[in-house]
């Protein structure tokens, strides 16, 4: 739980805006988003496709340039212009695990190269033997055999490929890992294995995760805190249990109701809640980001906040 863990901030995101396109075609996909991620926690980011959740992850890892706002990692600003030195350091501190293990591995390279590619970019060259040792260890850490290092990606199943993707991130000895839908492309039975591996690695190495997904059911199991994003704007943020117990924003409720439950009688009775953004009337009162109870934030105007408060009691 985030409460029990240190309150030391690893990553601060302040009023982040990201846009694509220029001038007339400018499209702001992340609009004024702020959050902190504490050391050792798993921060979940949930939203539908096109909501900007991946863009936030990519802005942190410096793939997408930011329009305005600050991203602060370990007390240092990391967006915008930074020195080459700092850039190189960040690349090893922040790593990413991608969604589709079928597309994110170089088909023409052997596992050995795929896993150690990040090391080749370091300023201090690592001798060949040492590198081999590190690859073997990284593979063992994710539950693969060192012998696999001379094989090609096509020889592996989806779950194994995702493990290679994780090994590739781990070998850089990162502090912070952005996992972008790491399990959505996998079978249910393999999902469990990969999730277990991720939480085991977190315990062993004191990693911090930003876990991006569209599925709240997985989040409950892995995340300490969850932020719900809709169309580039955060609508609710809270500790996992609080959010599941008292979902306030209608969009969060819609997301929760969409999770299929393994219970046929309840499922067949279920009425699907569909989120309709036009229920908010923000023409007079502008919405605000309010801490409605401890560590539970929600977006709404004064009238809505009043209703949310009532529903809490």
């Amino acid at each position, binding site marked *: 739980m985030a409460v029990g863990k240190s309150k030391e901030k690893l990553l601060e995101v302040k009023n982040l805006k990201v846009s694509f396109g220029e001038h007339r075609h400018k499209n702001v996909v992340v609009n004024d988003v702020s959050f902190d991620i504490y050391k050792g926690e798993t921060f979940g980011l949930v939203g*539908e*496709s*096109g909501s900007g959740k991946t863009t936030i992850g990519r802005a942190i890892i410096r793939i997408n340039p930011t329009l305005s706002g600050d991203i602060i990692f370990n007390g240092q600003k990391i967006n915008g212009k930074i020195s080459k030195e700092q850039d190189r350091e960040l690349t090893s501190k922040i790593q990413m695990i991608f969604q589709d293990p079928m597309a994110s591995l170089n088909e023409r390279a052997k596992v050995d190269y795929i896993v150690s590619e990040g090391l080749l970019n370091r300023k201090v060259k690592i001798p060949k033997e040492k590198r081999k040792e590190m690859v073997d260890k990284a593979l063992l850490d994710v539950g693969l055999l060192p012998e696999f290092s001379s094989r090609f990606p096509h020889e592996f*199943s*989806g779950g194994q490929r995702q493990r290679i993707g994780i090994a590739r991130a781990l070998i850089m000895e990162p502090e912070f890992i952005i996992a972008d839908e790491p399990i959505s492309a996998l*079978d*249910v*039975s*393999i*999902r*469990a*294995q990969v*999730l*277990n591996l991720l*939480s*085991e690695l977190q315990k062993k190495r004191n990693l911090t995760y930003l876990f991006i997904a*569209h*599925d*709240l*059911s*997985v989040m*409950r*199991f892995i995340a300490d805190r969850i932020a719900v994003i809709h169309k580039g704007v955060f609508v609710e943020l809270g500790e*996992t*249990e609080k959010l*599941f*117990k008292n*979902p306030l924003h209608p969009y969060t409720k*819609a*997301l*929760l*109701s*969409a*999770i*299929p*439950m*393994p*219970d*046929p*009688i*309840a*499922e*067949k*009775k*279920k009425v*699907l809640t*569909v*989120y309709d953004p036009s229920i908010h009337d923000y023409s007079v009162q502008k919405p605000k980001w309010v801490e409605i109870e401890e560590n539970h934030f929600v977006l709404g105007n004064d009238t809505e906040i009043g209703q949310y408060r009532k529903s809490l009691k």
Partner: protein
Amino acid sequence: MEKEVALSVKNLNVKFNLRGKILHAIRDISLEVYKGESLAIVGESGSGKSVFTKTFIGLLDKNGWIDSGEILYGDKNLAAFKTEKEWLTIRGKEIAMVLQDPMTSLNPLKTIGAQIGEAIEMHRGLKGAACKAAVLEILQDVGITEPERRYKQYPHEFSGGMRQRVVIAIAVACKPKTLICDEPTTALDVTIQAQILDLLKNLKKKYDLTTIYITHDLGVVANVADRIAVMYAGDIVEYGTSEEVFYDPKHPYTWALLSSLPQLGKKGEDLYSIKGTPPNLFNEIHGDAFAPRNPKALKIDFIERPPLFEVTPTHKVRSWLMDPRAPKVEPPEHIKELRKMGGKATWQ
């Protein structure tokens, strides 16, 4: 009440030839699909669930063939079909299929209207204005707003959920009696997934369809399935009504599949995961295919294939645990929880 059989599969065996090696993909499956029901076939990737249903519409890859067995549909035996001409009397007209990935199953160079119209023209013989009217009606049916405008658009102008609606529209355009949905929602978001499942349920009612769902996610089918068949390594190991399979599963594989659902996970504890990997179907399988991954497997599981034991007239299980001589093995904790949940599952 006696249910009418729509499709009956008897001792079906399907084999593939891969670089000279023979792969036994479907191992002696018998199953009946009733008229108007919705059946879900659940299994891991590689369990043969897609191959199994592809035999119903003659879409097996070129290197695969039906080795033995029958697929009876009405008075025809689909397993004996040889020519494309024979298949065209069934495929699309009688049995249609919705494929998994809406991003790849549409032609990017043709408008949506033309793609749906093509199916209508071919199967229902409508042309020109009549054809367009039929397309617009179907677009409306699958929940696409402003059909007039959408008619002229190309697939890239549609979102993933909307494209899946178009794919469904093409499938139901020729008024089939049976609709096979192969992982219809796997590539979609949860909210969209729920909407598509809702749509399929409504269409089933409206067109009086028999629906067969294929999925790897048991969580998805609780909402839509009347009956569930669990597949493992080319064999159906358990089938029953969805209440029977969710609240009273008997086969260890069904237990494992249900237990690994993240919905049942508890924070701080490891999620249940199935150890090992599915068997290699190039090798001959002895006994219960799941035995090597089942920590509580009996000795006989490794020697002889279990027969189909009857739990209730609708619920059958292929596991030695059901034999009267077998020791009592309690289902795992998660399964007992599911039974307790019985109809009261919520998020709070």
